[in-house]
């Protein structure tokens, strides 16, 4: 390359432009040293920092996606639980309504039966009391009749006499 930097021809042109092989070599070597230093000590560290940042971003993105998936699952599960709870509640309400209806009907039936029983008992008791009253009334009537007859006949009526008179009266009716 020495001819390139000679004083004639191209060498003269390059020299006029300020290029000589010593300066050019010095510039090349100096720049290569700078590239080596940067490539050895600076860029790997910065690339590592960028990779770390990208890894963190990836992890964050993955964590966000996982959280979103968990949230979606939780929402789905919550919706399912709510739906199941609603179904169960509706079923319970329906059952309770049926039970209440049945209970009301049963109570009504029992009340009606009890009322009928009370009425029947009351009627029976009333009939019994009527019978008792009639019996007592008969006895009282007989006693009054006897007393009246005693008063009219002026004689004491005992059982035998009374029976005799009754028999005689009955015969007279015949």
């Amino acid at each position, binding site marked *: 390359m020495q001819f390139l930097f000679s004083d004639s021809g191209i060498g003269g042109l390059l020299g*006029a*432009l*300020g*290029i*000589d092989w*010593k*300066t*050019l070599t*010095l*510039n*090349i070597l*100096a*720049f*290569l040293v*700078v*590239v080596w*230093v*940067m*490539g050895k*000590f*600076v*860029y790997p*560290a*910065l*690339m590592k*920092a*960028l990779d770390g940042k990208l890894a963190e971003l990836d992890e964050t993105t993955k964590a966000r996606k996982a959280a979103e998936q968990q949230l979606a699952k939780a929402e789905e599960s919550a919706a399912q639980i709510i739906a199941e709870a609603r179904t169960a509640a509706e079923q319970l309400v329906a059952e309770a309504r049926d039970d209440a209806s049945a209970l009301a009907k049963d109570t009504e039936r029992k009340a009606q039966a009890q009322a009928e029983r009370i009425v029947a008992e009351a009627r029976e008791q009333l009939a019994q009391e009527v019978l008792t009253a009639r019996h007592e009334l008969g006895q009282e009537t007989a006693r009054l009749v006897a007393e009246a007859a005693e008063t009219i006949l002026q004689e004491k009526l005992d059982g035998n006499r009374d029976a005799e008179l009754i028999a005689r009266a009955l015969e007279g009716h015949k």
Partner: protein
Amino acid sequence: MMSFLLASDGPHVSLVAEPIFQIGPLQIRNSMLLGLLGTALMLWLFFYTVQRARQRRHNRLSIAILWGFETLLGTVEEVMGSREQARRVAPLSLTIFFLVLINNWLELLPFVGPVTWHGEPLLRGLASDLSFTAALAIITMVTAQIWAIRTHGFFGNLGRYFANPFTQPMHAFEGFLELIAEFSRLIALAMRLFGNIFGGEVLLAVMGFITSWAAPLALPPFMLLELFVGAVQAYVFFMLATVFVALGAAPHEIEEVSELNELPAPAQSVAKQAGS
């Protein structure tokens, strides 16, 4: 930069970076001094960011640098099409971007130019020295060739440029054109960056000279423009370096047009611009 304000014989414009001192056979130029400062600043910024990243204790500066690094690394991954390949190419292309960007911005500082040493500016923009841009271009194209050889093999890579002209005349012609294209890419890479940055310096110098005492009011818009141009040129060089390496690794049976079509849209536009 503004020392010419007090001079009567016009702004100081020199196509070649001025030598400041000599170490043995090596000539130390003013562009190298600013380059050293820029490199030191870049290394400090990145080691600071690494320290912050390790401690997981970021501030705005470290976040901004990490964001820039992440964005450019993503671009390299898109262009290369593979995360593993991108991480091998990234040290070169990212260092190009950050070093060029920082030096392009540093040269706009007020003390770059006015401070002189034996009558010559002590500091000068690194990219306004063709030695530096040519060095970057050579490294880029050599890396692209090394990458192509690793992908296709030594003879496979030669097959991109040489073919039997009697049996494959079109392929031989295309290979010849491709060989010329490789050299033109190298020269274009070096000249584009140098031309834009040196042109910016000249623009500022001329505008400062023309506006004289009104320069503090007139120059800021142009300085903002140069900030923008410096960032754009750093990005263009970074993208072209990545694209050229990716093209070197692309299958050479496919035509270049289809190779470009496989690249992402930003890389396609930059590559087409570089080709034109």
